């Protein structure tokens, strides 16, 4: 079993900020827009070093999406920054018409996604955003797992021509993927090799999946663990290859089971390789105030929940 070391917990949003700042230096067409959350999105360095390419739009997310769409006309690569809730539901029609349907090269960068936003509560804890975004034709949807991967993804999406939704979060979480990784959109990352159960996780749940795999291993169960950072396009081949070996699968995400990673995986399995599946996800509910750890425990989104789901799905084989 491979071991993964937490090289020091960091927030994924800081990975975004670091990636954006690197892009600012390396690509003069990259511009950044923010709706009054510069500090929260860790966009301060880009703002300080490239003020002419930083656009503070105020608390006006709809206008921000339109501005970003317009800036692509003239060759700019706009990165918008606000919370996931205000990056999706609040501006869905603006994204749909002015960005997705119009085929504009806008990178929608969304922080504070999911329950781990914590104490602010359900108004800010969106658990529906990946579903909203993946339903838009042509939209790429990425949910990164740690600081290093978020930084690498931020840099990678600038090279992809087309709209992208990049989802990350607020809390400090384990940083365990390589600092020098080559981020490939749509390409799953195999983290553990195992034969008894496949665990496919995205975002903050990837580290939890690794912890679950350790726990399962101690009980004599070997888990195949895959980090799916790209929800759309989904690396179906990697998933099918794994379930052909294990015969069952757990999907894990900080999102509603409706519209999330699990549903996308189910579709692929139904089409080509029907397989028992358990969903570690929120169960069609809003969140609430609490610490991130309390919330992940209460809503069943941690290593213990993944291990329990793994045992359950193995029993269904």
């Amino acid at each position, binding site marked *: 079993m491979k071991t993964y070391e937490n090289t020091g917990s960091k927030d994924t949003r800081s990975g975004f900020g670091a990636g954006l700042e690197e892009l600012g230096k390396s690509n003069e067409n990259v*511009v950044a827009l923010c709706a009054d959350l510069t500090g929260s999105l860790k966009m301060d360095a880009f703002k300080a070093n490239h003020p*002419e*390419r930083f*656009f503070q*739009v*105020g608390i*006006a997310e*709809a*206008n921000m*999406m*339109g*501005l*970003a*769409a*317009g*800036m*692509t*006309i*003239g*060759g*700019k690569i*706009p990165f918008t920054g606000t919370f996931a809730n205000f990056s999706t539901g609040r501006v869905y*029609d*603006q994204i*749909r*018409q*002015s960005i997705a*349907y*119009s*085929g*504009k090269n806008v990178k929608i960068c969304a922080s504070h996604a999911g329950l781990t936003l914590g104490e602010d509560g359900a108004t800010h804890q969106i658990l529906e955003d990946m579903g909203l975004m993946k339903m838009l034709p042509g939209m790429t949807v990425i949910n990164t797992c740690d600081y290093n991967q978020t930084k690498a993804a931020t840099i990678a999406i600038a090279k992809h021509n087309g709209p992208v939704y990049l989802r990350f979060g607020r809390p400090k979480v384990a940083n365990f993927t390589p600092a020098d990784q080559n981020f490939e959109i749509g390409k799953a990352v195999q983290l553990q090799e195992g034969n008894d159960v496949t665990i496919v996780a995205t975002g903050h749940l990837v580290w939890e999946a690794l912890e679950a795999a350790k726990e399962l291993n101690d009980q004599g169960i070997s888990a195949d663990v895959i980090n799916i950072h790209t929800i759309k396009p989904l690396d179906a081949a990697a998933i099918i290859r794994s379930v052909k070996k294990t015969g069952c699968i757990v999907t894990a995400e900080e999102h509603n089971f409706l519209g999330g990673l699990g549903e996308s995986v189910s579709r692929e399995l139904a089409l080509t390789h029907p397989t028992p599946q358990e969903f570690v996800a929120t169960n069609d509910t809003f969140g609430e105030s609490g610490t991130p750890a309390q919330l992940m425990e209460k809503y069943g989104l941690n290593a213990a929940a993944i291990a329990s789901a793994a045992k359950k799905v193995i029993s269904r084989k």
Partner: protein
Amino acid sequence: MADIKKLEDLVTQVRRDILRQVHKVNSGHPGGSLGCAEFFVALYQEIMDRKEGFDMDGLGEDLFFLSNGHISPVFYSVLARSGYFPVEELNTFRLLDSRLQGHPTTHEGLPGVRIASGSLGQGVSVALGAAEAKKLNGCGHKVYVLMGDGELQEGQNWEAIMYAAANKVDNVIVTVDLNGQQIDGSTDDVLALGSMRAKFEAFGWEVLDIEKGNHMQSVISGLEKAKTLSGKGKPVCVLMHTVMGNGVDFMMHTHAWHGKAPNDEQLATGLAQNAETLGDY
């Protein structure tokens, strides 16, 4: 000096194109289209500095964005008659597999269209983004927008209007088609707009009126004036007073023809009031 007669002939032909497009498919929006025929002809033939052909980025030329996408018949007619695509293609308006979708889109690759519009209230934001990109690119050309008056009921516009003044986006000229009508009735009855001049001025815009928005020389003079006001630290708003359905007597001064096509007899009446000038497609 503009050849007014020639431009007015083009307007007449554009009116015919509008009526024939919507009649053929028994759908579309003739009222607002007819009211803006002079504006589109003036803009594309006299006002904008345009390059040959079409490329999306539009560097080194003026840009135009249509925010109220439902008046696509007039947009398509003037684009075709300004050389962006063959006028015969107007025959495909709203048909399956056409590039001339009900509302304009980039999705089918129609030359001349840089953004999809139809869901209202988004065009000013997009134009401001394009204007900011022009500034970053050191391109001194301008960005024009047309929007409906009823459309100003959409809140996003006011986000954009506030942004433009605060950030001195002075290379954008927004024309509001003040025809006072929307689908459910007059704008006064549906949701009164109040003084558009006072509102735009309060937001920090330079505002001018074109009182006779269906008079070619007035439209040209107004837009020329708008050009001279731009580039001075403030965005520019043109309040263009038009008559919905202008040029077809039974369609004028009513909201009834906002989104309704004429029948065969009504088409004949409308065409008789606008004799062919440049040749039908």
